[in-house]
C-alpha cells in the first residue's frame, strides 16, 4: 500500500530535527536505489527539469511497475530512491490515484532549491506518466 509507505516515510522524517540529518538520510537512501541498466541511461529516460542528470526507467511485470534510476548528483539520487521506495511494485492504478501530500509533509520542497524542487516534481510527473502509459497498454 502506497499510503502505508508514505506514512512510514513521514514518520521517519519527523525524527530529524536538523536539516543536515535529512540530507544525510537522503544520501544513504540514494545508495539503495534499484540501479538502472547502463544502456537505459539514454536521452529518452533523462528527466527534464532537473539541473543534475536523472534517468528513470520502468517496466511492467504481473501488473506491477518496477522502477530503476540513477543520477550524477547524490542528493538527487536520494530523492529518486525515496520516490521509488513509495511507488515501486505498485499497480498503475494505485500510482495514478496516490495522494502526494506526503511530499509537503516531508518538508522536502522547502529544503530543496527551486531547481531541484522542480526536479522532484518532474520525477513525480514522470512516474505518473509511466503509470498512465502502462495503464493504457493493459
Amino acid at each position, binding site marked *: 500500500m502506497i499510503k502505508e509507505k508514505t506514512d512510514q516515510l513521514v514518520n521517519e522524517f519527523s525524527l530529524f530535527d536538523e536539516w543536515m540529518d535529512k*540530507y*544525510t538520510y537522503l544520501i544513504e537512501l540514494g545508495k539503495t536505489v534499484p540501479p538502472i541498466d547502463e544502456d537505459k541511461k539514454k536521452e529518452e529516460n533523462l528527466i527534464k527539469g532537473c*539541473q543534475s542528470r536523472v534517468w528513470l526507467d520502468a517496466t511492467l511485470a504481473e501488473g506491477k511497475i518496477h522502477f530503476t534510476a540513477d543520477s550524477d548528483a547524490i542528493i538527487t539520487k536520494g530523492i529518486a530512491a525515496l520516490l521509488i521506495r513509495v511507488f515501486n511494485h505498485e499497480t498503475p492504478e494505485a500510482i495514478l490515484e496516490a495522494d502526494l501530500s506526503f511530499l509537503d509533509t516531508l518538508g522536502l520542497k522547502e529544503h530543496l532549491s527551486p531547481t531541484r524542487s522542480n526536479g522532484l516534481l518532474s520525477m513525480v510527473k514522470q512516474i505518473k506518466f509511466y503509470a498512465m502509459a502502462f495503464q493504457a497498454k493493459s
Partner: protein
Amino acid sequence: MHSLRSQFPILKTSVHNKPLVYLDNAATNQKPLRVINAISNYYIQQNSNIHRGVHALSQQATESYEHVREQVKTFINAKHSHEIIFTRGTTEAINLVAYSFCKKYVSSGDEILISALEHHSNIVPWQMACEERGATLKVLPMNLNGELMTEALPQLLSNKVKLVAIAHISNALGTVNPIKKMIDAAHHLGIPVLIDGAQAVAHTKVDVQALDCDFYCFSGHKMYGPMGIGVLYGKEQWLETMPPYQGGGEMIDEVTFKKTTYNVLPFKFEAGTPNVGDVIGLGEALRFISDTGISTIAETEEALIRYCEEQLLAEGGITLVGTPEKKSGVVSFLIDNVHPYDAGTIIDRFGVAVRTGHHCAQPVMDFFGIPGTIRASFAVYNTKAEIDVLIKAVQQVKTMFC
C-alpha cells in the same frame, strides 16, 4: 569597510537563520540604498514620459535620462554621447548588433568569430544571425588554464570574418582576456570587434577609445545598478549605417503609411518608451562606483580572490577550474568528485549564496568535461570573514560526500 557594507540593506538579511553571505555577484550584485532611493524618488517626484511632453515633469525626466547618457559616456570614455544606446542589458545589446550589424554587413559565406569561453548570450545571437545570413560561426580555442589561444588568431582571421565578438572577462572562469591585443589583430585586417563587458565594468576601468573596440556591451545589474537596464556602446560609423533593430515610437523621424524615416542616433535604436526609472538608477550606480573608486574595488576583490583560492587549496581535494594568469571577479572550483548541485545544496544551508552549474557557458564545461562548477564571485562589499564561512560550508560538504 563597515560603512560601505552598511550602504547595502540586503546584506543584513538572514538565510536559513544564518547571516547572508552573498558570493553570487557575477550573476547580479547587490544595490546600495542610494540606487534604490534614486529609483523610488524618480517615481515619487519625476515620473513622466520623456522626449514627448512640453510640460515641466516631462522635461525634468528627459533631462535626468539624458544626463545619465552623458555619465555613461564619461564612465567608459566614449567619444560621443549618441554612441551610448540604452538596452535591457548585455544580452539585448548583443542581440541588437547581431541583428542589425549582420543584416547590413554579413552575407552568405562570411564568418563571425567568437571564443571558446563565451557566455551563451555571446554565442546564441551569433548562431541565429549566422543561420539567417548563411554565415559560419568560428570559435577561437582556449587552453587548459582557461586562457584564449590568441596564437591561433592569425589562422582564424581572414577577409571572410566580418565581426569578432569576445568577452572582456569570462563569467565562468574569471579569465581576463587580452582584448586590446585581439582588437588590434582584428583591426589590422579591418575587422570590427564587439566586447561583452558584462563581467568587466564593475571590476576594472574600461576606456572604449583606448581599447578602440567597435562595440562594448554591459548590464546595469552587475554593476550595483538595477535589473532591466544595460548599455550598448557603438562607434558612430557603425551605428549610423546599421538599420534599426525595433520599430515604434521615439525611433522615428516622420511616419506615413507609405514610408517612415528614422530618427538620429541614439534614438534610432531606442524604440518605445525607455526604462527611465532604471536608467536613473544606473546613473546613481555609476556615481557609487566613482565615489568608491574603481581601483579600490579592483584591489579589494583581487585580495578576496587570492584569499579564497589559498583557503580552498589549503582544504585539499579542491580543483580550481580556470587558472589563467589574469583573473577577475570569480573563483570557480570543484570539491573532489562531488556534483556541484550536491555541494551547492549544502553550502546554501550555511547562508552562503554561490552559483552552481554551468553558468550559462555549457561549452566551457564541456571543454573541461565537467557538469558544472561551484562559483564564488565577489563584489567590493565582501569580506574575508565571509570567505571563512564558505570554507566551513566546503568542509561540511567534504564530510557528507567524500
